[in-house]
């Protein structure tokens, strides 16, 4: 501070009486009601990042169903679409049939490893910034703050007796929440049908009952989870906080309180002699700004906790106070536990992002990603399944020949009408024929409509005297697209009575 002027803050910070919910809970019996958290608004770097992520996530959610992707005449042009009645899922260039659900599994595995890697590096940034529960809770809190005011105003309003003003504010808040919830539920089902058509239907009352049901369901869950359950979802419902510590180590960046510098904490009081009030004590002025701003209502100074979602809002709150009292920022900061020990001992912090754990997660990501890529690139647009008739196993015909029947399904995954030729390998003298189709002899012509499965009953006839070595002979059906680009085969058996 300037010479002559007593060192110390320009003005004392506002002291909040917030007490962490854990402290409050310790005094309560089992099955106590939830202790309501009234997070205080804050501004700063992490708050801005959180706002940015909120806008980005909501933008993806609301814009994605409206993206178009041309797939020709016989398929929908919505870029991201899960067509449940049609049993298809579309994701830009990728189109998934039900039996290819392993692509979805792959995406989920990638997402899981991505989450592990992010957590190992930077702690629970998913929880703090990108999880739908965080995004929608933040949005609902924003509306709450606009209508009912900030933390103290809301606490006062909660305690105030019933009045017209209170009723009006509550009505406005819940009405806005319900509108937001309906918008959330409404957008959710747009991923399951043609968005423009569905939206018109929803508003003109022509959508199906199940569509309204799902809008209602997702609206209700949004309203309950973002309006009321909030941090309880993270603490009690979500499994992730319970095992995320397995991904963390002492070199992961998490929200930490520099207790070595903050303690012993104490309220800021001017020394009678005007000397530096921070001599002989820690930097923490025990203003509770970090507790008041925490969306899960905890006190970060208690150390690493299950409830902490790693959003860093307490960092912003503390930095503002540190600026006011003239102490260095980052009393609460994103830092590793190792670095905190180093700083406490006066050593320089070491930043190590590349470690066995992160390398392993990256490798797993790369391996699964490569497998997925190979799967997508080499995805065949035709599939063949063959079911042998088992009742009867074989038929002997008038001319003494033996016939087996097969039900052949041709899956045409392209968006064009396609012809295929079916040939047989393994029984050189056998003849192919089919019901209602062209061609007979050594190859058949099967056609399949765009994006459809075509079923044919195919007969394989072995002439009299052309004995087979065993009762059961391995044969293979070979299917080839008429344009020659796609081929596939399927093994089965031919059964003839022993000679």
């Amino acid at each position, binding site marked *: 501070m300037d010479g002559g002027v007593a060192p110390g803050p320009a003005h004392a910070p506002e002291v909040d009486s917030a007490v962490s919910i854990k402290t409050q809970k310790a005094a309560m*019996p*089992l*099955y106590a*009601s939830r202790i309501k958290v009234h997070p205080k608004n804050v501004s700063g770097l992490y708050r801005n990042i959180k706002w940015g992520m909120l806008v980005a996530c909501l933008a993806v959610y609301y814009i994605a169903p409206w993206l178009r992707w041309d797939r020709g005449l016989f398929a929908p042009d919505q870029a991201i679409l899960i067509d449940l009645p049609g049993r298809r899922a579309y994701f830009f260039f990728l189109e998934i049939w039900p039996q290819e659900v392993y692509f979805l599994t792959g995406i989920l595995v990638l997402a899981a490893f991505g989450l592990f890697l992010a957590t190992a590096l930077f702690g629970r940034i998913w929880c703090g910034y990108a999880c739908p529960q965080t995004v929608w809770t933040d949005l609902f809190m924003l509306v709450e703050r606009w209508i009912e005011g900030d933390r103290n105003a809301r606490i006062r309003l909660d305690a105030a007796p019933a009045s017209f003003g209170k009723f009006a504010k509550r009505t406005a808040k819940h009405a806005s929440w319900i509108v937001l919830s309906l918008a959330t539920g409404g957008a959710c089902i747009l991923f399951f049908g043609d968005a423009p058509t569905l939206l018109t239907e929803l508003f003109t009352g022509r959508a199906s009952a199940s569509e309204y049901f799902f809008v209602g369901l997702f609206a209700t869950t949004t309203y309950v989870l973002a309006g009321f359950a909030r941090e309880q979802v993270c603490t009690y419902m979500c499994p992730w906080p319970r095992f995320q510590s397995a991904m963390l180590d002492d070199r992961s960046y998490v929200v930490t309180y520099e207790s070595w510098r903050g303690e012993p904490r104490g309220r800021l009081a001017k020394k009678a002699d005007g000397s530096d009030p921070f001599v002989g004590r820690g930097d923490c002025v025990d203003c509770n700004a970090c507790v008041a701003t925490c969306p899960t209502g905890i006190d970060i100074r208690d150390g690493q906790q299950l409830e902490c979602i790693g959003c860093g809002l307490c960092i912003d709150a503390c930095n503002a106070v540190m600026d006011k009292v003239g102490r260095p920022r980052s009393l609460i900061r994103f830092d590793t536990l190792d670095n905190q020990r180093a700083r406490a001992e006066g050593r320089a912090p070491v930043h190590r992002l590349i470690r066995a754990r992160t390398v392993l997660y990256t490798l797993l990501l790369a391996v699964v990603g490569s497998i997925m890529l190979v799967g997508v690139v080499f995805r065949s647009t035709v599939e063949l399944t063959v079911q042998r*008739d*088992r*009742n*009867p196993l074989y*038929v*002997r*015909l*008038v001319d*003494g020949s033996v*016939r087996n*029947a097969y039900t052949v399904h041709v899956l045409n995954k392209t968006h064009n009408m396609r012809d295929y030729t079916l040939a047989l390998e393994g029984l050189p003298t056998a003849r192919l024929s089919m*019901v*209602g189709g062209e061609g007979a002899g050594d190859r058949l012509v099967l056609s399949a409509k765009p994006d459809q499965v075509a*079923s044919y*009953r195919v*007969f394989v006839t072995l002439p009299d005297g052309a004995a087979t070595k065993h009762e059961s002979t391995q044969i293979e059906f070979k299917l080839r697209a008429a344009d020659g680009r796609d081929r596939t085969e399927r093994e089965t058996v031919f059964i003839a009575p022993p000679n």
Partner: protein
Amino acid sequence: MPTKIEKDAVTGTDTTGHEWDGIKELNTPLPKWWLYTFYATILWALGYFVLYPAWPGLSGHTTGVLGWTMRGEISESLAQAAAAQAPFVNRIDAASLEDIAKSTDLRNFAIAGGRSVFAVNCAPCHGAGAAGSKGFPNLVDDNWIWGGTLDDIHTTIQNGIRNSNPDSRISQMPRFGADKILDAKQIDDVAEYVLSLSRRSRNAAAAERGAVVYSENCEACHLQGGVGNAEMGAPSLAANIWLYGGDKATLVETITNSRAGAMPAWTDRIDAARIKMLTVYVHSLGGGK
């Protein structure tokens, strides 16, 4: 009987007032949300009593204001299914058997529908896979007693075989042995001849004698060389496919006492469109001509 509610010193919780041998029970009530959910389910159940059939009486039960029954629900969904199939069924009704077999859509619908009609009505005798069994013809092979064209199969299904329907297919093989038309020696010879038609005779002399008996007694229906005559329902004897068995003892039994398998007429039991579907299905099994 609650005696005295007191505050527990350790936990600060009230007791229920119950005490057994000095053991007192803490009053830790259920969570509110749990209790209210429980009450809500009770109310929900009351709603069921009013809306749905619930209470048994001496001569029936309460029907509920919705008038819902399980039977009603299934007949409703059956009616829905029938309505959904109606356009196709009407087209099948109007089309000829040949047209149904030629059109991919109609053929696929007929085969799928025919399969279900077959499973309900025909499978008990002909088997689920239509492979038949002793006395019940195999419908999968290409050996037909009464003909294997679409029209032949259609007529057989409609009118049946050897039943009281006036249009029923009728034919009767004489009981050559029981009615003393042939003696045992002749029957043995003709059986040997029949075996020779499928190259299974081991007694050329008997077969030669049998050929004469055959030409005098059997050829009128089974035709020369035993090729059979679908017009008369006379099976082929040369195909080595047998309804009752092709070994010599069974052949002798058949010639001696004759056979008279019967099949019901389905024209009054299944509607015309479904009989057509059934015809196309049977024809598609592989043996259709």
